[in-house]
C-alpha cells in the first residue's frame, strides 16, 4: 500500500504539499549552530519545535543533540516572548555554561514580532550575558524558505555577529562548507591540509555530530569553530564558499562587511566540481597541488574508466536540496548516467535553469522542479521509470513501491549509518559514491538475472 496512494496522472496542485521534499528553517539553523564550538542552539518558540529538531537530528546522527527552548505558552504568544528569552538566557548561562547561545526564531515568535537584537541588548544591560560569553541570532520563520534557508541564515549570522574587519589580510582563507555531513567537513579540511593551506572553516560539525564513544556524555563536544576564529574570518585574504544557497549569503556578507573577496563554488561532489574546488584553493592560497591529491583524482578516474559499461545511460531519479543536486547532477552526467527526474522542495529559480544546462544534450527528456514534493517525483517515476533513486530516507517508500534500487543521500537519513563518518565530497568521496552506485546497480543485476545468466565476474 503506502505510496500506492499516488495516482499516475499528474494534476496541478496549488494548496497542498504531499510528502514534502523539504522541512522548515529552524532545523537548518540548529544544525549550523552545532558547528560552533561550545554553542547551545536555542529555539525561540514553543517546545514542540525544538523537540522535533532534536529528535530528527538525533535520528540522523545517532548522537546526543543539545538545544534549549523559550518554551512559549499562551501568555508569551499574547504578550511577546521577551520575558521567556531573557529568563532562558539567564538559565542557560547559569547551568549549561555554553560559550555561546545561537538563537533562531520560529513561525510563532516571528509572527508575534519579537525583536531578538533588542532582547539581546536588554539581556546585556541586565547582565544576563556573562563576561566572555556570546549570543547570536538568525531569523528563521518556518513559512519562508526551507531548512536550507535556515542553515544559510545562521551561517550568515556568524559573519554578521562576529567577523571583524582587518586592514591587513593574513595569508589564510575562509572555507564555508555548506550543509554537508560532518564527514564531508572533515574531508574538506583534510584536502585543504594536504595542500598546506591555512584556513578557517565555519560552521564545522566535525567532531560534534560524529564523535567517538568515550564513555562520557558531554554537552559540548570537542569540534566546532571557535568565536575567536569567527572573529578572525574578517582578516583572511579570501573566502571559498561551497554551495550557492547554503554558503553564498555568508560569503557575500563577509565581503561586504570586511572586504574579504569570495569565490562561490558548487559542493565538491564528483570529479569536475572537485577539480574546481582544488584548483580554486590552489589559486587562492598560491600553492601547488601535491601528488597525494593527484593520485586520489587518478583513482577516481580509474574507477570510472573500469566500470563505464555499468554506468552507461542508466536513468536516475534525484530528490534533495539544490546545492547537493546541482553538484550530483553534474557528476552523474559526467559518468554517462542520465539524471531524468530531479526534485527539490526548496524553491529556487536558478536551480531549474542550472539543471537544464547541466543536462543539455542528454538523449532523454529531463524533468526538474524546485518547490515540488515527493508525490510529484513519484508520479514522474510512474510515467517514466528509472534504474536508480538517490535521496533521503523518505525515498524508501517509492523505492519499495516501484521496486527500484535506492541510495540514501541527503537529509535526513533515518535508517542507515555511514553518512556522518564517510564523506561524499572530494575525489575520495566520489569514489565512495561510485561504490554505492555500483553496489546498488550490480546487486540488482545479480538479483534479477536468471540462473543461466547469473554472472560471477562483473
Amino acid at each position, binding site marked *: 500500500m503506502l505510496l500506492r496512494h499516488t495516482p499516475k496522472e499528474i494534476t496541478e496542485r496549488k494548496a497542498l504539499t504531499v510528502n514534502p521534499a523539504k522541512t522548515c528553517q529552524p532545523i537548518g539553523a540548529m544544525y549550523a549552530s552545532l558547528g560552533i564550538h561550545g554553542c547551545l542552539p536555542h529555539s525561540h518558540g514553543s517546545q514542540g519545535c525544538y523537540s522535533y529538531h532534536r529528535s530528527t537530528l538525533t535520528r540522523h546522527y545517532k548522537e546526543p543533540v*543539545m538545544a534549549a527552548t*523559550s*518554551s512559549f505558552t499562551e501568555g508569551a504568544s499574547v504578550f511577546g516572548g521577551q520575558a521567556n528569552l531573557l529568563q532562558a538566557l539567564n538559565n542557560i548561562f547559569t547551568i549549561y555554561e555554553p560559550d555561546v547561545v545561537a538563537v533562531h526564531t520560529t513561525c510563532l515568535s516571528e509572527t508575534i514580532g519579537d525583536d531578538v537584537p533588542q532582547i539581546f541588548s536588554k539581556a546585556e544591560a541586565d547582565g544576563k550575558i556573562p563576561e566572555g560569553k556570546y549570543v547570536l541570532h538568525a531569523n528563521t520563520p518556518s513559512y519562508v524558505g526551507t531548512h536550507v534557508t535556515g542553515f544559510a541564515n545562521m551561517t550568515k549570522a556568524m559573519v554578521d555577529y562576529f567577523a571583524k574587519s582587518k586592514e591587513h589580510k593574513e595569508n589564510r582563507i575562509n572555507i564555508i562548507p555548506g550543509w554537508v555531513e560532518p564527514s564531508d567537513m572533515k574531508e574538506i579540511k583534510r584536502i585543504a591540509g594536504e595542500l598546506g593551506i591555512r584556513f578557517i572553516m565555519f560552521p564545522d560539525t566535525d567532531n560534534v555530530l560524529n564523535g567517538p564513544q568515550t564513555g562520557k556524555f558531554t554537552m559540548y563536544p570537542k569540534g566546532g569553530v571557535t568565536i575567536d576564529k569567527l572573529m578572525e574570518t574578517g582578516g583572511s585574504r579570501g573566502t571559498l564558499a561551497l554551495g550557492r544557497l547554503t554558503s553564498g549569503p555568508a560569503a557575500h556578507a563577509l565581503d561586504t562587511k570586511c572586504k574579504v573577496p569570495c569565490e562561490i563554488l558548487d559542493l565538491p561532489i564528483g570529479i569536475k566540481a572537485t577539480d574546481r574546488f582544488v584548483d580554486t584553493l590552489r589559486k587562492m592560497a598560491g600553492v601547488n597541488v601535491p601528488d597525494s591529491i593527484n593520485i586520489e583524482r587518478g583513482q577516481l578516474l580509474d574507477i570510472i574508466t573500469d566500470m563505464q559499461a555499468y554506468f552507461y545511460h542508466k536513468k536516475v531519479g534525484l530528490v534533495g536540496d539544490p546545492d547537493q543536486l546541482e553538484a550530483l547532477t553534474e557528476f552523474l552526467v559526467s559518468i554517462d548516467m542520465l539524471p531524468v527526474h530531479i526534485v527539490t522542495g526548496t524553491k529556487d529559480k536558478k536551480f531549474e535553469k542550472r539543471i537544464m544546462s547541466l543536462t543539455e544534450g542528454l538523449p532523454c527528456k529531463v524533468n526538474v522542479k524546485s518547490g515540488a514534493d515527493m508525490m510529484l517525483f513519484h508520479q514522474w517515476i510512474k510515467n517514466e521509470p528509472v534504474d536508480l533513486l538517490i535521496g533521503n530516507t523518505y525515498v524508501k517508500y517509492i523505492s519499495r513501491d516501484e521496486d527500484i534500487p535506492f541510495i540514501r543521500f541527503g537529509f535526513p537519513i533515518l535508517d542507515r549509518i555511514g553518512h556522518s563518518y564517510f564523506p561524499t565530497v572530494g575525489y575520495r568521496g566520489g569514489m565512495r559514491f561510485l561504490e554505492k552506485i555500483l553496489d546498488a546497480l550490480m546487486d540488482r543485476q545479480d538479483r534479477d538475472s536468471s540462473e543461466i545468466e547469473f554472472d560471477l565476474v562483473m
Partner: protein
Amino acid sequence: MKTASAVIFEERKDQIYRKGDAPFDIACNKESLAGAVSQRACVFCGSRVVLYPIADALHLIHGPVGCAVYTWDIRGALSSGRQLHRLSFSTDLQEKDVIFGGEEKLYLALTELIDRHNPKAAFVYSTCIVGLIGDDLDSVCARVSKEKDVSVIPVQSEGFRGNKRAGYEAACKALFRLVGTGDTNNISPYSLNIMGDFNLAGEIWIIRDYFKRMGIEVVANITGDGRVDDIRRAHGAALNLVQCSGSTLDLAKMMEQSYDIPYMRVSYCGVEDMTESLYAVARFFGDLRIMERTEKLVKEELSVLYPKLREYRKVLAGKRAAIYVGGAFKAFSMVKTLRLLGMKVVMVGSQTGTREDYLELEEITDDGTIIVDDANPLELSAFIKEKDVDIFIGGVKERPIAYKMGVGFCDHNHERKEALEGFSGMLNFAREVHSTVMSPVWRFVPRRAEGGTGNANN
C-alpha cells in the same frame, strides 16, 4: 562532569525527590523553565501521536511544512489495512498565507485530498501559526463536511497552548465528535474499547487476541490500527480500557458522562500488570465462563513464559535500571517488570506525570530511588553516573546520551521495534534488556571514564 546538585536549576529542585530523604513531596505539571533542555514536546505533538494511527482517516496538518514533516510516519503504528496515515499532508503555509489567512488554501487542500483518497473521516490539525493568524478552522471543516459528506474534524492543537497533555485533550475532543455516530446493534454485552494503545510493533493485535480468547468483543481500537467506523460505534461497548498515562483518559471520562460507560485503567506491560488487567476485565463482566477462560489463558501463557524468563533473570539479577518516559503510568509497569527480572530501579521519571502518578511511584520503589519530573539531559546524565546504571529505558532523545555513557538502552517509546506488551511482549522485553545490558560492546567502552566504578569488564 558536574555532580547532580550542580546541574539542577534552583527552580527545579522541587521537581526531584529522593525516596527516603524526606516525606514525599514533588512539584509537577509545571510549565518547563525557559532555557531548560527539557525533553518535552508540544500540544500538536500530543494530538498527532494520539490520532495518527487511525489509518483510514485523512490527517491534514494546517501550518508551515515542518510540523507535517517531523511527524511523518515516525511512530511505527501498524495498520492491518489502509495506510493513509503514513502519508504526510501539509497546507505548507507561506508568508502570504500568514498575512492574508490560510482558509482558502485549507479548503482547497481538503477537497482535493478527499476527492483523491475518499477517506472515512478527516482530521485537520491546527498549529501555532494558525492559532495566531486566526483561521476559522471550524467553519472551513464544517463547509467541507457538508459539501463532501465526510466528517471533517478540527483538532485544536496549537503548539503553544501547553505541553503534550493539552494535546491529548484536544485529540480526545476530536475523537468524541465521532463517538456516538455509528450503529451499535449487534454489539455483545461482553464488549470493550481498547484505548491508549497505538499498535506499535503490532501490540494491539496481541491484546485483541487475549480478549478474543476470553470471549470478549473489542468494538474499537483507540487508536492503534484504528478505524473511523469502529470509533463511531464505540459508545456501544460495555467498558473502556484505558492504557497509557491519560492520552485517552479524557475521552473515557467524556464517554462515561455522556454514555454511562465505565472505564478502567490498565497496563499491558509486564506479567503482573497484564495478568491483573485481564482479571480485572473478567471480574468486571462477572461471568464465570469468562473468568475460566481468563484463568486458562493466563496459565497457558505463563507456563510458556516463566521458564524462559528464569534464564534471563539469572543473568540480569542485581542490575540497575533508570526509567524516563513520557507518561508516568507506563513507569509503574516498568518498575514491576524490571523487578520481576531481578533488577533494581534506581531512577524513574516522566515528562508529564501527575502528583498521583508520582505518589504511586514513591510507593512501589525502593529507598534511595530518584523520582524526577520533566528532567533534562544534564540531570539525567548526572543521575545515570551517580546511580551507576546498567540500562536506561527511554525514548529517542535519551538513547544517544545513555550510549555515550556506556550504558545499555531500551526504547519503550515510539521507536520500539518489537512488541513489548502482553506475555509474548514480556519475553521480548527481557530479551531486549538482556541484549543491551550484556552487550559485548561495553567491554571496549571506557565506561564512566571519570571516577569509574571499575566494572567495565563485567
